[in-house]
């Protein structure tokens, strides 16, 4: 998996979020969306390259080609178009990929390049003034699909616990939780009875099928929510999982949460194994 970080700034945080939400929207799963993307954190004006309020976003894809193509498309459709937005590289790497390099042609010959302190930027004339973007950003190896499951006695209880976990995990750097609100309710399993589908509903964790499938659920479990994490390194994902699980545990016995589990897939899906017990002890798997 490959990842990149982009810093998006705007006149204020409201418009930085508009741009970032558009760019990271429809980016829940690499299966159907091409990339998995999300807002990593908010940035103050002091932290951004141009001294304006901003956010940082992370984007991940299976392969460099897809990442490059998706990044350019989303830049063109979501950042170039958003009032007052500007984009800058958020990560250094030996592998630099196009951020605004090809968008410059939208300037129709009126675009200007500036090389400032060793970095190249493009200024593209647009109706609201000038669109400023750095030419490239870094592409790095990354890890996707770390996950854990929240098993609870009701749907509201499972969701409330998931929300609590997400609020805590948002404070961890280098990770995103790409599904809507950071939570996925339709966790999948590998394989299907239908030949054309390689993934299908994870029936072992579907509460309405407890009696007719090889269920992982105890009788009192009425709902399961999954949190999926993508991150730059194994340790980043492990840290965010620890933070999220501990936040749920802090809710206590009366929260309705009975168990935390994870998608196992027989240990055969992907090269990285996140062992929950080890993670909670603070060690790597």
């Amino acid at each position, binding site marked *: 998996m490959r990842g990149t970080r982009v810093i998006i700034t705007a006149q204020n945080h409201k418009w930085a979020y508009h741009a970032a939400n558009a760019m990271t929207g429809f980016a829940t799963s690499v299966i159907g969306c091409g990339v998995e993307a999300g807002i990593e954190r908010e940035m103050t004006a002091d932290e951004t390259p141009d001294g*304006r309020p901003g956010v940082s976003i992370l984007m991940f894809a299976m392969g460099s080609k897809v990442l490059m193509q998706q990044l350019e498309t989303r830049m063109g459709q979501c950042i170039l178009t958003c009032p007052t937005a500007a984009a800058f590289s958020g990560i250094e790497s030996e592998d630099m990929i196009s951020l605004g390099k090809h968008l410059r042609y939208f300037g129709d*010959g*009126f675009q*200007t*390049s*500036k090389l400032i*302190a060793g970095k190249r930027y493009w200024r593209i004339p647009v109706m609201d*003034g000038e669109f400023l973007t750095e030419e490239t950003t870094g592409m790095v190896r990354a890890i996707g699909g770390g996950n854990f499951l929240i098993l609870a006695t009701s749907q509201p209880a499972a969701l409330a616990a998931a929300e609590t976990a997400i609020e805590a995990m948002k404070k961890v750097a280098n990770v995103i939780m790409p599904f809507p609100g950071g939570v996925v309710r339709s966790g999948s399993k590998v394989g299907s009875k239908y030949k054309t589908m390689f993934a299908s509903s994870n029936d072992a964790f579907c509460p309405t099928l407890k009696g007719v499938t090889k269920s992982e659920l105890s009788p009192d479990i009425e709902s399961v929510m999954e949190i999926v994490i993508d991150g730059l390194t194994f340790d980043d994902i492990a840290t965010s999982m620890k933070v999220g699980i501990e936040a749920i545990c802090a809710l206590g016995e009366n929260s309705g949460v009975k168990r935390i589990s994870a998608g196992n897939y027989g240990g055969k899906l992907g090269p990285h194994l996140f062992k929950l017990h080890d993670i909670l002890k603070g060690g790597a798997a």
Partner: protein
Amino acid sequence: MNALTFTLKTALQQSINCSSLTPDNLSGKSISDIGAIKLVTGKNGLLVCDVFEISGSDTQHLVFKNTSSKLNYIGANMTTGMITIEGNAGAYLGFGMKNGEIHCKGDTAAFSACGMRGGLLKIDGNTGDFLGAGSEGLRKGMLGGTVIVKGNAGDRTGDQMRRGLILIEGNAGDYCGSRMIAGTIGVLGNTGAYTAFNMHRGTLLLKNQPQLHVSMHDCGTHTLPFLNLLFKSFSKYNTEFSKLSSQRVQRFVGDTAYNGNGEILVLGKH
């Protein structure tokens, strides 16, 4: 280690090409080796020891003392180290310089930073014509690096400049930014006539309204976001440009007589 110091010991009648006296060329050489280097001057060659008293040992830091405007090509093609000139320098200071730093505490003659590719050139006094330009006959001027002039510059500053940064705290003469290809020139003082003549691309950042010829067109007053990045990049240099903060400028584009897309940005109260 003390800086390797060259003190001019005689009044010069003809110019001397000092391009062999750089940290690159002198590295590992003894004082006697250095003294035996032949300098190009007129029809008769002179040795370094004929012209300079040599002292010190640090070949990464050269100092020129008791200098004159007849010392040309100081720092030519250097890639490392530092040169300090405690006085005036001649023409072609920093010619083809690739890296390192040159600090001239006096004035310089024409063609300073000619063909410069990188590094930092600081001139505390005034500089002559064709600052950052290319050699005669070439189609590109300065290709990179930073030049900071505390005093005034002559005519044709940045002629055919291709890349890099020139900051002039004083005035610039006529044809500032002529035939400019890219890069940035800043002038806090006044500029002369025909500013940006035949400009292709690049940015002239001016504190004061220039005299403009008819093919430079007013595009109005704007707040330009990239200026924040540009001004931040000035902060590492000891220059009055570090105090700039307003991103509000009046923008002139041209030279339209050349299908140019260069810009003159005039700072000030807008």
